[in-house]
């Protein structure tokens, strides 16, 4: 669905892992939207959420991996301008979506009444994220946790996404490192020409479509030793905090930006896997 994917691309999404939802039903989406709207309106009364009137909609975009996956759920909060006319402009102020892409590991081991949607992505003000999150937690007895991405996982993303074929290689591969144990925080940004990086990866990867930890290690070590040769700095002693490629960009605090629609499912599959391992 091109409209949905266009909506998901080039936005900054904050990632959460969500434990399975108890007694969630796709048939009751309108009821949930009504209840959640009421909850947000109540929070507004208390002065906890700003902005004009809100319209909440919950729908099912066509986004899943295997047939066993639950259909994704999209929650959108729009505000109408204060001079509330029937045809006045609606502005989208917050979006959040639950999804599960190839999450068989989790869904196979969960009892009947539970719905598995381990990955939650939010875009918009943090206050709305916490209101919506609290409502889901109270209503379906689930637990939201920020999804952190370790340097090890970021290295996998760097190697994997470097290997992907892109039509127009416009953007460089960028790795950002945070240097520990310094009085003032210091970040080092290492930009690599995408064709050079892909050429390097192609000499390392033995089986197309398969990636091993050793191959990722060799790839990163090559980049580190190249940097050391020029700047005499051991990047391997620092913490990798951000990876940006033409496919997507990911930050260790659990923030993602999708940049290519053709690889959207692939990235979601990886994020679903990370979410599931954080839950277990």
């Amino acid at each position, binding site marked *: 669905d091109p409209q949905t994917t266009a909506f998901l691309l080039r936005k900054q999404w904050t990632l959460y892992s969500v434990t399975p939802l108890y007694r969630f039903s796709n048939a009751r989406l309108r009821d949930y939207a009504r209840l959640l709207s009421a909850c947000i309106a109540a929070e507004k009364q208390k002065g906890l959420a700003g902005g004009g009137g809100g319209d909440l909609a919950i729908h099912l975009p066509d986004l899943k991996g295997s047939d066993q996956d639950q259909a994704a759920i999209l929650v959108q909060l729009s505000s109408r301008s204060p001079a509330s006319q029937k045809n006045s402009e609606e502005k989208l102020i917050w979006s959040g979506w639950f999804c599960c892409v190839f999450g068989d590991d989790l869904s196979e081991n969960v009892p009947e009444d539970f719905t598995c949607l381990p990955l939650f992505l939010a875009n918009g003000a943090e206050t709305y994220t916490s209101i919506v999150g609290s409502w889901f937690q109270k209503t379906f007895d689930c637990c939201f946790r920020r999804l952190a991405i370790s*340097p090890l996982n970021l290295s996998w993303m760097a190697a994997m996404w470097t290997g992907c074929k892109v039509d127009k290689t416009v953007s460089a591969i960028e790795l950002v490192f945070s240097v520990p144990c310094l009085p003032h925080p210091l970040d080092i940004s290492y930009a690599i020409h995408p064709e050079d990086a892909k050429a390097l990866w192609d000499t390392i990867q033995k089986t197309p479509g398969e990636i091993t930890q050793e191959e990722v290690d060799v790839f990163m070590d090559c980049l580190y030793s190249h940097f050391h040769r020029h700047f005499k700095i051991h990047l391997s002693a620092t913490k990798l905090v951000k990876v940006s490629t033409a496919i997507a960009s990911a930050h260790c605090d659990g923030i993602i930006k999708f940049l290519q629609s053709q690889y959207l499912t692939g990235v979601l599959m990886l994020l679903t896997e990370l979410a599931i391992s954080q839950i277990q």
Partner: protein
Amino acid sequence: HLATSLPLPSERDHLRPRIDLIAFIIDIKNRYSLKNVEASLAHVDASFFLGKVCFLVTGVGRVNYCSVEMNAIWKLGKVYCSPVLLCELELEGIRVATAQRLLRMLQICAGHVPGVSALSFSSLMRNSADD
């Protein structure tokens, strides 16, 4: 004796006492520490690997900061036939307990515990780890 890498500088060889135990420290948050240890291992005489070497791994509690895969470290322990001890050196209690443990191992390696040799002790540790 503390060193950041091996080999030790040769100028002080004649002043150095006999070395009975080598503990290599790997910080799981720091990939360079693993590379450094791997490079230093090449400078260790083979006789040390009969129970006089161990690997201390720190930082395992902070999963989100992990830059080194544990499998690589387990493999290192297996290849060099030496025990891998997990210890959160940033916590004082564990630091003290690890120091006591190392001291006990050192006593055995230096031959101060009658009836227990470094080799027999290390094979004892290895069997319990595999279980």
